[in-house]
């Protein structure tokens, strides 16, 4: 099966009948090589703020959150207009993104999640304070079905750090168990690990070599820099 460079679908692959976007993470692994994705919703006239949602229920309208885009780590162009999207998942793994079209949806806020606006604890995890004293790395692990089948496959990390010195865009952690310091959150489809950055800083060469063996990796991680201290607030 060859990898498409682009997926261009108008309306047909837009919102499903339930009003939700398809979960791309359930698709084949070749999604990660996709450079362009157009999933445009049904065309309608005018410039109303309201996409044509009449055929959907209020519950559907409230729950239209695009999921699975995080696996498209090579994506350069993403067109998702007119899909009634109310929330986007974390886009931080899409480090090659150049064009982002979310026009005519239902997005109400643009928030900054990775960086707090101050060092006063804003947006910090419960029990943590933001600080510049200690740089730690938070890894968000997406629980894909394949991960449940095989928990010992190589773990691919989609690097999305900012202001870091690492040159590898995609890193492979040879020993995923080394980062197994986080705790799973029951009932959620993700959980987080906290990592000390030097663990990666010395692994760039081996990561490059190991990347060749990651063709069948089953875990997709998105991680981002956060600065917080270990001390409790």
């Amino acid at each position, binding site marked *: 099966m060859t990898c498409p460079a682009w997926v261009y679908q108008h309306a047909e692959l837009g919102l499903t009948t339930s009003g939700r976007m398809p979960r791309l993470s359930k698709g084949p692994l070749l999604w990660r090589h996709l450079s362009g994705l157009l999933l445009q919703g049904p065309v309608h006239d005018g*410039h*109303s*703020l309201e996409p044509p949602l009449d055929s959907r229920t209020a519950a559907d309208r409230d729950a239209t959150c695009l999921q699975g885009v995080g696996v498209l780590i090579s994506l350069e162009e993403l067109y998702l*207009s007119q899909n009634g999207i109310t*929330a*986007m*998942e*974390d*886009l*931080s793994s*899409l*480090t*090659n*993104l*150049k*064009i*982002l*079209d*979310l*026009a*005519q*949806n*239902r*997005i*109400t*806020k*643009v*928030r*900054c*999640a*990775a*960086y707090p*606006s101050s060092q006063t604890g804003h947006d910090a995890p419960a029990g943590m304070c933001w600080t510049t004293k200690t740089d730690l790395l938070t890894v968000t692990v997406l629980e894909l079905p394949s991960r449940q089948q095989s928990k010992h496959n190589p773990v691919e990390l989609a690097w*999305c750090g*900012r202001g870091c010195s690492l040159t590898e865009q995609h890193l492979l952690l040879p020993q995923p168990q080394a980062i197994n310091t986080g705790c799973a959150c029951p009932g959620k489809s993700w959980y987080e690990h906290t990592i000390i950055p030097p663990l990666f800083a010395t692994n760039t060469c081996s990561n490059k070599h190991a990347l060749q063996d990651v063709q069948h990796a089953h875990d997709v991680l998105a991680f*981002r820099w956060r600065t917080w201290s270990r001390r409790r607030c």
Partner: protein
Amino acid sequence: MENLESQTLLTDLWLNDNPLEGLEHLEQALVSCKETLTTVYFQNTPAAKTPAYLHSMKRLLPNLEYVDSVVIQR
């Protein structure tokens, strides 16, 4: 929408016709791509109806060429 600030190569951002409440976090959200962004669309959002909208966009994004299909004269 979160973590827009992780985008460093973004050249085009289309958020027009969304019920965006305000642009107060936009400066921080676009901090990583403010040099690369050349085209933004926020028209038909409540945020774009504020008087300082266009001026704010120009100030925030130094390489901006188009705001809501309007060519920016520098």
